């Protein structure tokens, strides 16, 4: 939802203390949000406060601190339920990260539902954490992993996808926003197509979480996973959303404390959702920090709305503003970088998030990264854990600028000036 009011980006930047860092005497230009985003004061303060005033184990103590920690942990789950628009908070499982979430589904849903000859479809643009867990389970049960090809602009070949779907297809695991190309995939359509042959779909939302307003019900996703440190929350927290009936039918993943109902030496019964999948003491501080992140984003939405509104509406406003702004930055960045002779942008889908990956004819990404670093500019260089994408485009690596809600046109200008310096040296 687009809003008319706009916000002062300097005020937003001021909430992210790390952005005032000087690198080699120059202001930090942080363009590596795809790897991890920076954290706002609200999140830093909340985790600090947790250690100082709240720390206790959850879901078991009768004492004051345990109840306080439990309440804040459970509240974070309620917030993520709204963030994803799941039917209820039992469908929200906290994990160690996106990778852990995908492995959980592959090893539990996969073990229970996949057999020899079944097919798992992924796409060529998946990052390794949405490839390897499927290869592992496929090897264990004799299933086959097949890849949906992508076009030269970095889009899913939907005809080829349709051709690959059959009654043998049991799982489609697809990235919502590509970390290496920026492509926003038509996941709602892809999910409908998969459901037509009876396949389940896991959507990897690692890069969608910080850029798009997600609605798992509208998408009709069977599973949806988030990497929270990429969306302004602390590291070490991920989310697995699953449809309740699927999660209930799945066997537990890891055994241990918190995931049991009763334990005897002969037989153990398991806890209800979501606890069945949260064995052991979770990352309590991280999850509570995540709760603070959702509040922070909702706060941005409040400023835009200038009136009382529920969490969902405030998140709508925040993401509406972010999508519009990041769209402008992407357009600006694409134009500015395309002006540089010898520079090729990798990933030119019409529907893209604010991710700009490129190669330069005269210099290797590693050298570009080092020279940009000297200018205080943080970018990612390498294969971005997407070796099949690099193979698809016939390149060893790219340089990637991935933007977040605090980035500015001035920073894109600095990036372009840095790239021109690389050209002076290597051209």
């Amino acid at each position: 939802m687009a809003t008319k009011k706009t916000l002062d980006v300097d005020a937003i930047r001021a909430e992210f203390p790390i952005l005032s860092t000087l690198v080699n005497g120059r202001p930090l230009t942080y363009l590596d949000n795809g790897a991890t985003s920076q954290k706002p004061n609200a999140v830093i303060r909340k985790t600090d406060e947790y250690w100082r005033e709240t720390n206790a184990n959850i879901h078991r103590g009768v004492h004051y601190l345990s109840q306080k920690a439990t309440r804040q942990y459970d509240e974070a789950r309620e917030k993520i339920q709204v963030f994803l628009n799941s039917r209820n908070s039992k469908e929200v499982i906290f994990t160690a990260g996106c990778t852990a979430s995908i492995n959980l589904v592959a090893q539990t849903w996969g073990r229970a539902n996949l057999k020899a000859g079944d097919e798992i479809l992924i796409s060529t643009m998946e990052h390794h954490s949405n490839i390897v867990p499927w290869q592992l389970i496929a090897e264990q049960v004799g299933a086959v992993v097949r890849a949906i090809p992508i076009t030269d602009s970095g889009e899913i070949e939907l005809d080829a996808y349709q051709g690959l779907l059959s009654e043998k297809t049991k799982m489609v695991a697809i990235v919502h926003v590509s970390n290496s190309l920026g492509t926003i995939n038509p996941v709602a359509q892809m999910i409908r197509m998969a459901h037509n042959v009876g396949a389940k779909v896991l959507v990897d939302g690692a890069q969608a979480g910080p850029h798009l307003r997600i609605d798992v019900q509208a998408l009709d996703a069977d599973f949806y996973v988030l990497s929270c440190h990429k969306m302004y929350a602390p590291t070490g927290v991920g989310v697995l959303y699953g449809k309740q009936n699927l999660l209930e039918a799945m066997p537990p993943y890891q055994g241990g404390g918190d995931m049991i109902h009763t334990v005897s030496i002969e037989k153990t019964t398991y806890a209800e959702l979501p606890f069945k999948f949260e064995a052991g003491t979770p990352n309590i501080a991280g999850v509570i920090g995540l709760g603070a992140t959702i509040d922070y984003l909702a706060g941005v939405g409040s400023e835009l709305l200038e009136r009382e509104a529920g969490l969902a509406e405030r998140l709508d406003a925040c993401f509406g503003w972010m999508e519009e702004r990041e769209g402008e930055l992407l357009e600006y960045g694409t134009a500015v970088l395309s002006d540089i002779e010898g520079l090729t942008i990798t990933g030119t889908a019409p529907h893209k998030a604010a991710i700009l990956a490129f190669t330069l004819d005269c210099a290797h990404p590693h050298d570009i990264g080092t020279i940009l670093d000297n200018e205080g500019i943080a970018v990612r260089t390498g294969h971005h854990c997407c070796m099949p994408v690099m193979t698809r485009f016939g390149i060893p690596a790219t340089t990637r600028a991935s933007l977040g809600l605090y980035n500015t046109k001035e920073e894109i200008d600095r990036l372009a000036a840095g790239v021109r310096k690389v050209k002076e040296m290597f051209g």
Partner: protein
Amino acid sequence: MSVELRELYQEVILDHNRRPRNRGKLEEPTGFAEGHNPLCGDHIKVYLHMDGDRVADVSFEGSGCAISTASASLMTEAIKGKTLDEVEAVFREFQSMVTATGEAEEHPDLGDLEVLGGVREYPVRIKCATLPWHTLKAALKGEEAKVSTE
């Protein structure tokens, strides 16, 4: 541009990156190995022709950054004609130069290879400079292994 960056990308390095020496494949090599840096995607192949314990010819192929390309190019120039013992000595000195901490020391024995000393200021780039050498070592081992099986 900082002094460290100028030191890293010296003209000799840029030159070897633009015009790598001994780049290409050797037919029927007596030693061969592939090296790969999975972190950055650098890939290199080293080909050897040994004459007894002497490096009669050496070449490399691959894709990589300026540091790894220049390092490979300079390496081939430095070791051609040298005996295994001499190669080992150069390797050790090179290794100690690029991983040294503290004040930079002179390495007159290294000749042109000394220009790669600047990487010690860039810990993440040290592997770029050493990848060709580790690949060479593997190629030399292959040669020794072949010799020992015959």
